[in-house]
């Protein structure tokens, strides 16, 4: 069948494209985000006290496997998310940045505990970075010293929510292209 008056359709597609909507892949986006959001792989990264609570969240009582976080990776290249649990010092900062740069997009950062957020109790020290947001973009902050495991879970679920409303195609999956 031949479509008559198809200008309005072309017009609509053009409009949608301009505003960034993907007509077809929109549904796919939702599906992919459902998958992505429920299987965020964290990097095993812990520098100090908060890291022990992070381990506790991984153990049986709190069990972050319930939310799809259990596949902790030792290599940044396989991780989706980095939980910065603990104090970041001047000597560690370039290393952390390098770890972040080595992760594949889309990637997320959670700052756990007072130290990662602002330097915490060590704010006045000569060797502590006052907040990792100076060196990395942070998605979720979880305050506490250390935060309770429940707080950690809550923070991780906030990240899941964020992931689920993001646009995948043309946005987070191509971030690097855009920056280049």
């Amino acid at each position, binding site marked *: 069948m031949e479509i008559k008056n198809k200008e309005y359709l072309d017009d609509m597609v053009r409009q949608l494209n301009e505003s960034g909507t993907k007509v077809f892949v929109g549904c796919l986006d939702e599906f992919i985000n459902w998958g992505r959001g429920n299987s965020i792989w964290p990097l095993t990264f812990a520098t100090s006290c908060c890291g022990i609570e992070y381990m506790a969240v991984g153990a049986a009582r709190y069990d972050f496997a319930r939310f799809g976080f259990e596949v902790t990776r030792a290599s940044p290249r396989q991780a989706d998310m980095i939980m910065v649990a603990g104090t970041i010092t001047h000597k*560690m900062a370039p290393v952390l940045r390098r770890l972040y740069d080595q992760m594949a997009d889309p990637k997320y950062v959670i700052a756990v505990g007072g130290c990662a957020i602002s330097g915490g109790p060590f704010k006045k020290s000569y060797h502590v970075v006052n907040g990792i947001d100076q060196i990395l973009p942070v998605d979720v902050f979880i305050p506490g010293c250390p935060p309770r495991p429940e707080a950690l879970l809550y923070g991780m679920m906030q990240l899941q929510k964020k992931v689920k409303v993001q646009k995948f195609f043309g946005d987070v999956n191509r971030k690097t292209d855009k920056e280049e």
Partner: protein
Amino acid sequence: MDNIITIDKYDFHDVALEYKEQGYDFLRCLTGMDWGEDGLGAVYHLENTLTQENVVLKTKTTELSDPILLSVCDIWKGAEFYEREIFDYFGIRFLGHPDMRRLFLREDWVGHPLRKDYDFSLNPLRMTNEVTADMTQNIEVLKDGSVIKKREVLFDEDEYVINIGPQHPATHGVLRFRVSLEGETIKKLDVHCGYIHRGIEKMCESLTYPQTLALSDRLDYLAAHHNRHALCMCIEKAMGIEVSERVQYIRTIMDELQRIDSHLLFYSCACMDLGALTAFFYGFRDREKILDIFEATTGGRLIQNYYTIGGLQADIAPDFVQKVKEFITYMRPTLKEYHDVFTGNVIMQGRTKGVGVLSKEDAVSFGATGGTGRASGWACDVRKRHPYAVYDIVQFDEILYTEGDCFSRYMVRMKEIEQSLNIIEQLIDNIPDGEIQVKMKPIIKVPEGSYYAAVEGSRGEFGVYLESRGDKFPYRLKFRSSGLPLVAAMDTLCRDAKIADLIAIGATVDYVVPDIDR
């Protein structure tokens, strides 16, 4: 107050050697000092391991622009890392030290932070990657008395060096090793510390005494109570405060619970490092029971902030006694389960027996206390050597092994859990009534002098050296880390072991990195 013997800097090496020959073979603590106008120097705490006698020596130099002291690392091996720490903090160089590099800070760091005149603005955050040098410097005296600087090679160009850490799941935090290999055999191991160096000692110099307590919990968070106990004891000793019996009992029980907590975590992590992931969940399951007991009384799970100068933050929770008893009844049979799950396993035995042997002489010389020292046959338990709190009235065995390998280090800790349960059992029903806090003045000032107090932490002697000038701030507060001597011994432990053994050795030596770096 400690009685300190001052020794001229030129004679120091000879005098130190004499003390060593008299049997002072354990360098407990080495503290760098900046006495302002009076010069820079170092304070040495020595102990005779046979008689438990202590002496404190000090030496200093008034040359401020290029201070030099004599090294004693040929006498006590542990001095090697301590002297590097002092060089890093104060810029004092040690003559005869084979490897005068910074220990914690970056190579391109400007100045020496623990000097009183250190300028904070000199070191902004540098985001450039640190270049690791393969060379090191030392200074030597020639026969004619002149001093030369010499460069020495750490790793040759054609050596095969691999890097482990600082981001590696088996280094328990952010420790970094550079390992030179020949095939799979470790020829040399170079430890890089400082990735979690928070500058706590410097911070303490501008905090009041009650404020400094908060930072001590965060040093070795698996010995939070012990660290704080040492600091409180040191200040109480300095001020002549007697805490009540009740406080002593509660502190002892809490310390022992903390020790069990730490050893359970040790078990979990050691198993995980050796590939037994299931056992990790067992340890953590039972650790949560202790954390619940802690939480009911102190309000914290990991960082508890419970002891205060002269007492405790709060009285024990009403169901504390009952909960602790339930835990003891639960824990004893569970330990058997642990051994069934992991200890008897052939792979575990094969990977740990005879691996990473530390001789008793080396353990003493490095000052490797705690489970590591006791596995080598050195009776180094502070609870026995210098009893504090109520350890003199309880019965318990000091677990000693003689093999000094990974397996005995593991077994020491597992058996210490039982001993800790015994100690708690003896005390839990007899907690006397009494005050939980001695009345203190609103502003706490410590009389002038220098003081040292030590406790048995989860992984060795944890000491506090305090020098006060009568102010409400400490003039110098040094924490004798239990972990630093352990990593200092890593090179010796790992020589000629296989690279895969490094993981087993690291797991059983059981260091906590923020405690090393402070």
